């Protein structure tokens, strides 16, 4: 018995909302509008390689990279503690990590604006404590903060899931063979958690590199990232051709880095986690 027909609603959905849009994007990116209608051209792609846009690309990657590194530094120990703790609070901790994700992404980011602004919660607390106030809203730091805050669970959960599946007797075997805590971690636990790390990095880096909400709200529009650039082309400049070209270029970039990542993780483990 096969229930393949049960997939057909999804197939229709996929064609309408994924395949057709991609074809449209390809079409727009490879054409320019003239008085006589649409004409084939690679101008849109050539334009993308102008220094001003490459700089935007570079800055997007840079910020996303920093955010990913911070997520990793914060997320790995957290995942490790979660996975190794066998006390009853583990589920509560995971809940605490996941609950913010139930709230709308935009709202969460707006909330950070009210925390960080000049007369915001953070500075009120600081002045109560008679500490100098800081103004980090509309800086790179605020953008990175927003990325880390929003994407941290995507780093923690895959690492936690891999760590908690490591056979405890493998760890005991390493101790038995003379490895102290540090060596056990370095030679056994960390290598075995790599698939989770890879998938965590991917799941943080990808959305971070293409975000436009965080950079616009917390960066105050001073930081045009690749996502903002695409948004502008479609909503403000109405240059759909160029917008499509950037989108396609980003897609290629993302697919390439995913391919590199899965090479890293080894053929059989790969990105199967998500």
């Amino acid at each position, binding site marked *: 018995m096969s229930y393949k027909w049960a997939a057909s609603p999804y197939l229709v959905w996929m064609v309408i909302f994924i395949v057709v849009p991609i074809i449209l994007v390809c079409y727009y990116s490879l054409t320019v509008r003239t008085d006589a209608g649409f004409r084939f051209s690679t101008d849109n792609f050539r334009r993308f390689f102008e220094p001003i846009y490459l700089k935007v690309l570079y800055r997007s990657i840079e910020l996303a990279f920093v955010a990913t590194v911070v997520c990793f530094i914060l997320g790995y120990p957290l995942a490790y503690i979660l996975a190794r703790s066998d006390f009853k609070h583990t589920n509560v901790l995971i809940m605490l990590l996941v609950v913010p994700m139930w709230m709308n992404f935009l709202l969460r980011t707006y909330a950070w604006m009210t925390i960080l602004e000049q007369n915001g919660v953070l500075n009120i607390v600081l002045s109560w404590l008679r500490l100098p106030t800081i103004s980090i809203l509309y800086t790179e730091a605020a953008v990175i903060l927003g990325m880390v805050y929003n994407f941290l669970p995507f780093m923690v959960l895959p690492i936690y899931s891999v760590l908690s599946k490591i*056979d405890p*007797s*493998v760890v*005991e*075997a*390493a*101790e*038995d*063979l*003379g*490895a*102290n805590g540090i*060596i056990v971690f370095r*030679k*056994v636990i960390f*290598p*075995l958690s790599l698939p989770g790390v890879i998938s965590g990095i991917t799941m943080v880096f990808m959305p971070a590199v293409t975000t436009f909400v965080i950079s616009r709200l917390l960066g105050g529009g001073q930081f045009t990232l690749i996502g903002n650039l695409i948004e502008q082309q479609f909503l403000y400049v109405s240059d759909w051709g160029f917008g499509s070209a950037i989108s396609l270029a980003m897609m290629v970039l993302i697919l390439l880095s995913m391919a590199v990542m899965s090479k890293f993780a080894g053929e059989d483990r790969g990105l199967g986690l998500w």
Partner: protein
Amino acid sequence: MAECIIELRNVSKDYDGTEALRDINLKIYRNEFVTLLGPSGCGKTTTLRIIGGFEQPTTGEVVFNNTSINHLPPYKRRVNTVFQRYALFPHMNVYENIAFGLRIKKLDEEVIEYKVKNMLKLVNLAGYEERKVDSLSGGQQQRVAIARALVNEPDVLLLDEPLGALDLKLRQDMQLELKHMQQSLGITFVYVTHDQEEALTMSDTIVVMREGRIQQIGTPIDIYNEPKNAFVADFIGESNIVDGIMVRDYLVEFANHRFECVDAGFGENEPVDVVIRPEDIKLVPESEGMLRGEVRSVVFKGVHYEMMVENGEYVWIVHDTLMQPVGSKVGMVITPQDIHIMRKEDQG
């Protein structure tokens, strides 16, 4: 006997108030093959993990070469373990798995290579260096696990049901191989199993455990022939265990019949457990038997037939190479030295 290498003194272990081990006293001598034998949940694995350092005894002392090692972490103990499910490192090949302990000791690469190759030869896996561990069969993984432990030249090797996952034929081969390795390398083995046949085949000393307590310590022959109580008798090989009464020295009554026996020193008319091995009951024509019964079932077991013979309230297990058909009336003869008398446990 030789010097004592590991001693457990009054070791007890509680898990959240549940008693796992109770007052274990055990001496393990150098070059000895000791087997901890018992049903699951009897505390044999816990005992092994306490020796390995993975569990701390609640009370009592673990002594290694006359020094207490209670607070020594596993990585500082001169013992190595072969784990139940092998616990090989899945991200390393066979060579790196075996070399793991040597690399931690920071030996020279040539020395490591020499030792690993030697060890691979010993466990019949030469040429498997580059293989991934998950591409090996169960028996091969087992050998890698043994090699990984032995290459560190431990004073004591702990083995936690290492053959449990293998099929019968492979298990029997490995039993002999392990015994051979133990003898040729001169290492003390502490072996955990619930398989009494395995224990009898390999051990110098068997420690029978039940519900966290040691029931009997002895050589395989002692344990088989002179079980201390009905539990040991039942666990080591099949047994008929019946209630009896010690009428006086050298005379016991069970199954409504008085038998001569070789045991003495019980009180007059003391209730006792009587243990008789199935192979010690001889089937004879009905008129010649001490007990009479009817054959209820017959199962072919290879070398012998296992027959259930009903006599009054008891059903006797009898092993014999000659088959008696179901329903036939038979007599049973038991000679005095095959009747083992044990004090009732609960009153002890």
